[in-house]
Structures are given as structure tokens and as C-alpha cells.
């Protein structure tokens, strides 16, 4: 159940990432464009939702710069982790509820989806490596990692959606 193996951790510039072809649908219209498809970048979520998430991210980033923000010697969030979080936000799958954005003690940025006792988190690091952990019940939990290469992988997407699944 664990461990999608991470291989080479490579930092990928935004420009390089956004020019990758994508097969995903786009649901955003930008000012002055009839349709965003084929535009400069392929945003997966609504502009307003992205703005809200970026505001949350900025707050978390700023908070983490305060010395010992967590009161327990927590690490500040690096510029690279912040940058990677913006890249991941831009490709959040359509229809996936907005995550809550939180700082992590080790300087990661956490995206958390939660409902009731279930929750799933991504932990964005200062490299392309993204960690994840989920809790769906006492006997149903998991963790793993993946390399973020500009596309939101299916497995974490499904695990985030599972948080909102009603139990049979």
C-alpha cells in the first residue's frame, strides 16, 4: 500500500512545466480569451478558487517566516517549497474540493483534505518530491511519495476524493 518510489528529485522551472502538453480539461476562461485551452498555461481550477488558495498559501508562508512560528523550533517554509506549492495548486484536478493549506514542522507545506474522521494530506517539499499520508479509519491508513512533474498524479487524486466517499 505504501511507497510510490521517488527517483531523481529534480527542480523544474515553471516555464518548462507549463509548456507540457496536457490532456486534461480546462474550466477557466481568462479575460480576453474565448477559451483558455491552448493559452499560455493550463489551469485546472477556477481563478477565484486559485486566488483563495494562494491567499491561504501566502499567509502560511508569511507565518512560517516568524522565528520559531510553531513554538517548537519548527522550520520556516523555503522559497522553493512555496514555489512548488503554487505549481501544484495550478494543476489541482477539476471537482476536487479545495484543500486546507497548513505549515508543517519540517518546513513542508501541507495540503489537507478532511471530512469527519477521514483525511488525506500532501506535503510539498523544496524539491519535486511530494509526500502523502491518509487516514480513513483505524485499520485503513497509508502513506507514500511521488515526484511532481507538472501533472497531478491519479493515485493522490483518488485518495483525496476517497475522503469524501460515504461509508457503505
Amino acid at each position, binding site marked *: 500500500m*505504501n511507497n510510490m518510489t521517488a527517483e531523481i528529485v529534480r527542480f523544474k522551472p515553471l516555464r518548462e512545466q507549463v509548456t507540457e502538453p496536457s490532456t486534461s480539461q480546462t474550466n477557466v476562461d481568462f479575460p480576453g480569451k474565448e477559451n483558455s485551452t491552448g493559452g499560455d498555461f493550463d489551469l485546472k481550477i477556477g481563478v477565484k478558487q486559485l486566488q483563495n488558495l494562494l491567499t491561504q498559501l501566502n499567509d502560511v508562508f508569511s507565518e512560517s517566516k516568524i522565528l*520559531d512560528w*510553531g*513554538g*517548537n*523550533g*519548527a*522550520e520556516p517554509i523555503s522559497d522553493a517549497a512555496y514555489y512548488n506549492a503554487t505549481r501544484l495548486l495550478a494543476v489541482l484536478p477539476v471537482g476536487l474540493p479545495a484543500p486546507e493549506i*497548513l*505549515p*508543517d*514542522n*519540517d518546513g513542508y507545506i*501541507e495540503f489537507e483534505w*478532511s471530512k469527519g*474522521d477521514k*483525511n488525506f*494530506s500532501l*506535503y510539498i517539499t523544496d524539491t519535486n518530491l511530494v*509526500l*502523502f*499520508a*491518509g*487516514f480513513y479509519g*483505524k485499520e485503513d*491508513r*497509508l*502513506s*507514500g*511519495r511521488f515526484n511532481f512533474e507538472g501533472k497531478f498524479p491519479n493515485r493522490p487524486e483518488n485518495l483525496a476524493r476517497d475522503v469524501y466517499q460515504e461509508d457503505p
Partner: protein
Amino acid sequence: MFTKKTLNENDLCVKYIFREKSELMKDGKPRSRILVPREGEKLSLYEVTDLIHDDVCSHGHTYADNKAKGRRHIGYVKFIHETFLRLKLIIIYDDKPPRHLSVKFSGSPEYRREVAKALADEVVVIDARLPKKHFAVCK
């Protein structure tokens, strides 16, 4: 003076809470991130098995608060020692400061966070009538 103690399965320990919004969920369970120690460090708890509520608060004000940093706890969440055994977490009763426990998490960073989520789900219900039923408020 350091006194090594052994915990029984039913012994109780607490994690002091300093900020309600950023450290607790709506039902008073702790956010798992406050249970994950930093890389190479341990989770800090206090053993309170024989203490009543007011004494738990008083102990926190004496030993867990950091007056120099203006850090004063507002309450606590409680765990049963058996939970740590089940999750294969190692507790060291170092008694520094008094009643202090260090909990060691092992494994990869993502596994430690997985275990912290499981641990967060195991907090004791303190008052089922309250919305934040897992959280005890200190004055």
C-alpha cells in the same frame, strides 16, 4: 532528580495545546501536524494519570509554558498509553521536566505523518456534551 518510571497500559498522558484554531479540529481532536516531531526530535507529552484537571493545567503552566516567549497553554488533549503501544511508538519517561515523556517516531517522513494521523484519532473523549469533546480547557 531523574526518576525512571514505567507506564502501564491505562496510564494517561496529555499534549498541551497553545492555539485552538491552528492546533485543533472542530471536534477538539488535535491536528496531526502538531503530533509529528521535527526530523530527529521527539514528541513531548506529560504523564497525568493521577492528576485532576486543575492539577494538569497547573503542571502545564509550570513546566510546558514558556513565559519568555509569551507561550501559555490554553488546554490539553489526552491519550491512553495503550494507544502508543498499539501504534508501535516508543515512549521514554525521561521525567525532565517532571512527568515529561518523549515519544519517538521512526520510519520515513511520510510514515511518521501517517502514524500521527492515527494517533490524533485516538485522543480520549473528555466531555461528550461539548462541541470540542476531546479538548479540556485550562484557565
